[in-house]
């Protein structure tokens, strides 16, 4: 399964690049990441937990940066395994950064292989989960890069960053709208730009 997208962050490319390699920030950007440590220049290891559709997973992983071209390009390979669920995951990530007027344009590609019991459950769960990962990752990375005195949120899955509302209109029985509805909430400022990029790329 391949996922690719791009987004913009209002910060200098070198700053974004450094942030991407900082485990203290990354642990907050990666949803459900509970441990992340840097072993050496190119190797990391950690643990990630999550729950979707009554399935809880808890996977240890090792990541290796296989290509690094400061401050424009990173290729990393992550291998993880949930022993209890008999499933393993391999993610190959390509990140390309380019300076723009607004800050940095980031294009990324992920190739996700999920093998074992989870893999046979079909793509929809994985795709849905990756969308959440993506959403959280972008918002949290933006916070980290844009806010000078950034302190990571308490937990990425419950943090209060303005995550994009699903474009979904709930209509109570007694109050029908008279026109096709517009988006429910309008994010403001840098986040609106980010969200616009994000939506366009889908």
């Amino acid at each position: 399964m391949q996922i690719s997208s791009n987004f913009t962050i209002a910060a200098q490319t070198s700053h974004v690049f450094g942030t991407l390699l900082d485990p203290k920030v990354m642990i907050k950007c990666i949803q459900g990441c509970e441990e992340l440590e840097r072993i050496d220049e190119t190797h990391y290891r950690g643990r990630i937990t999550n729950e979707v559709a009554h399935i809880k997973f808890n996977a240890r992983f090792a990541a290796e940066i296989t290509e690094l071209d400061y401050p424009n390009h990173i290729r990393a390979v992550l291998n993880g395994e949930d022993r209890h669920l008999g499933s393993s995951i391999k993610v190959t990530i390509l990140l390309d950064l380019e300076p723009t007027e607004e800050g940095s344009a980031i294009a990324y590609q992920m190739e996700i292989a999920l093998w074992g019991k989870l893999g046979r459950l079909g793509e929809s769960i994985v795709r849905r989960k990756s969308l959440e990962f993506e959403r959280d990752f972008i918002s949290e990375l933006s916070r980290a890069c844009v806010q000078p005195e950034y302190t990571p949120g308490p937990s990425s899955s419950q943090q209060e960053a303005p995550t994009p509302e699903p474009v979904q209109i709930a209509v109570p029985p007694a109050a029908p709208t008279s026109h096709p509805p517009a988006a429910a909430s309008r994010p403001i400022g840098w986040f609106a730009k980010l969200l616009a990029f994000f939506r366009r790329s889908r």
Partner: protein
Amino acid sequence: MNPRILRPESLADACALLSQDEDALVYGGGTALQILRKQGILSASSFVDISGIPGLNNLHHTGNELLVGPMVSIRRMETDPVVRESVPIASAAYAKVANPRVRNTATVGGNIAHGDYRLDPPVALLVLGATIKATSTAGTRAIPIDKFFIDFQLTALNRGEIVTSIEIPISNDVVASTFVKFSSLSANDWPSASAAAAIVARDGEAQILRLALGALAPTPVMTAVDITGMREAQATEAAVESAMLIMDPLPDVRGGVEYKRNLGRIAVENAVRNLWRDRQSV
């Protein structure tokens, strides 16, 4: 390891069991949970089987509401004359669930508690404006159906809560209603797009088109359009325009995003055509 099966005989006992163990799951008909269990990926310590609790499989017509117990079977919603007459769109949607074997086993409560974005009944319940009653040791609360489906397989139910009733309003204002379902592969497969729609009369002349979509976003989704005075073509255009805004399909083996959006559009077009046909014949 397999979950333990617990069989409480009262609602209070069931709530107590659930409050004591956060990894316990409510067990209705079991058609969804057994699949997950057999896949070996379910993280549940026990199943609290509520089939032995008296009163949970009642079906009541109060005059302006249909009160449906959580253990009422999908099959009964399909076939019961009271359901067919009072809320035909619900009956039509329940009739399309899986196959007769599953419909005889699966329950109304389990069906919505599962929170699957592709299920047929939730779209009908959205259009009808149903209310879900959920009970726990903390008491009973009412959740409007449009606040019930939160995200991919995530509902508003808290841990420890049991769906104890679905209340479906019965309204004389419903001029016409319809349910349309498409699968993309075999005819018996999960839907790739479904639409429930109803024309509701308001304040004399005004007419509202209520439209809910299944399998086209991470949750069942809903919109409404004022079609007062519109011809069929205008109403179709307005409904499609509104529907396209709430679609956010997940790509999978059944089709990609663009394909599913197209199928969703056709489901809406067909739904409006059906509504117009039924409205003319009234």
